[in-house]
């Protein structure tokens, strides 16, 4: 098979994927009290990964990101469920969350919430599900 000339795609992907990853992490962190969150952040990360798949091909990407996306789903789900039942330990109702202000180096005064952990679970699950769906459609003959 003759490969299409995808020099332009590859070159721009380096830049765009970088921006997409950065923005998706921003969205993920912003999610607690501003628009964003684990779901949309996960979708955007998955979009960046798909873009890289398109530019560099299946084999190369398997080496760059050696992640089993099916396992990512289960890990994400496990994190989400475990954080929501974490409240049992403190005698609080299911899905309770708490937050505290911390003084972090470089970043300054920041709010850290346990909801972020739940969101991390959502984030990983969304990446896992999206990538599993897209890759299984792509590898279908």
């Amino acid at each position, binding site marked *: 098979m003759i490969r299409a000339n995808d020099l332009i795609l590859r070159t721009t992907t380096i830049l765009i994927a970088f921006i997409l990853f950065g923005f998706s992490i921003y969205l993920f962190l912003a999610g607690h009290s501003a628009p964003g969150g684990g779901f949309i952040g996960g979708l955007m990360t998955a979009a960046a990964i798909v873009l890289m798949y398109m530019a560099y091909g299946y084999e190369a990407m398997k080496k760059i990101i050696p992640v089993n996306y099916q396992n990512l789903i*289960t890990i994400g789900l496990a994190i989400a469920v475990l954080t929501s039942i974490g409240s049992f330990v403190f005698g609080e109702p299911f899905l309770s969350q708490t937050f505290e202000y911390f003084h972090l180096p470089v970043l300054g005064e920041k709010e850290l919430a346990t909801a972020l952990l739940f969101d991390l679970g959502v984030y990983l699950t969304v990446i896992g599900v999206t990538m599993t769906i897209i890759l299984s459609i792509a590898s279908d003959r």
Partner: protein
Amino acid sequence: MSNLAVLPIVIPLISGILLALLHKKIQLVRVLAQLFTGINLVVAIYIMYVVQKNGSIILESGGWDAPYSIVLVADLLSILLVVTTNIVALACVFYAPKSLSKQQEEFYFYTFFFMLISGVSGAFLTGDLFNLFVFFEVLLMASYALIVLGGGKVQLRESIKYVLINLFSSMLFVTTIAFLYSVVGTVNMAQIAQRVQEVDQKGILTTIAILLFFVFGTKAALFPLYYWLPKPYIVPNPVISALFGALLTKVGIYAILRVFTLIFVHDTDFTHNFFIWIAGFTLIFGAIGALSTNNIKLVISYNIIPAVGFMIMGIGLYNEAALSGTIYYLVHDMIIKAALFLLVGSVAYLAGTSDLRKIKGLIHHYPLLGWLFFLSAFVLAGIPPFSGFIGKLLLLQGGLQNDEVVIVIIALLSSLLILLSMIRIFVRGFWGEKDESIRVDKKAARAFTMPIVFLLFFSVLLGVGAELFYPMIENIAAYLLNPELYIESVLKE
């Protein structure tokens, strides 16, 4: 201890996730799946004990107060159904290893199985209409995966129908919730009930009620929306058919029961009379359908429909006897349908075909299986003293109290037709000359019978020990007839 209410949802969820990680180690997965289902059943029974002693458990998730948070309400009705669900699940999980191929088991069967249980329990426990939708989706997602498990050609064809009809009804469901929200401004069921009561259920609310009824009716397979049901339910593996037949339609019935005894109870002349009509047609067409085929699996599948008819009849009649009948029948039907699907599954496996014309004389090879089938036919048709009889008796009593003679006669006639359809399988499939061509597989038969015996034990107990259960069922019916109790327990006013 309000967190108790969420355990029947969370335990299967965690089990499903854990088993997905282990899915290649099939021996370990089987043992763990059986263990977790057992634990879940014990926990559910414990919750039922607590609920019976101290009243409903309300869980306001995230620590927000009732109308603002997502509430889970474990009252006696929902927890009774959760316990029944877990009894069915336990039987299925023991039946699965023999019935499924190793490939199917490895392909996340147990994960989807637990997701289904989680969704069903969630639908029973939630006190929030939008979350009812969410849990419907959870159980439907799991059921989509289960119905195509194995990926046979027939399965794919039938599953497209199944997925399409369910997608459509889910769309209608979420739209209807949006309508309802725009009118009453809340999705908390207790608060909806309160506000609908305040405005005395004006025309628009009755319209929304009927739309909701159609949504649930599609899931529950009522006339004329049942046409999609029989075939998709028989194409997957028997253990999956048993789960679907026992649980999925019953969730629809539960939703109707909850919504039309709690929220839309102010225009019963219209809504509930309408249900009686629907029930009549559902009974007739379902029973005729069961007689129309020679495929033994399809006979059982069609038998879901008249059972649903009986339950809707009770909701339509809307008095204490009839509602007790509906609840009794609901519990009875979950157990017996699972047992029957497992039974015909094993008959089809042992005889090598599900075509009744090609099966004969099975009782010579498998006497125990034959008599179990005979027993379950009697239980299903409602021959005294079995559980079907108690449910039907209460329903008929309720019907006569309301002077609805026609529906009573229809119910009696369709019971006869159901008995005929079941006995037909027994007479033609089990009696007759010994079929020497059948290769006897006693070991498989023994593995199949154990879960069936387990289910039938509960079924018989429910009938013979009716004295034990009836007071509780009667309590639930009285509780349902007084929606104030539910509203007060959730909103604590």
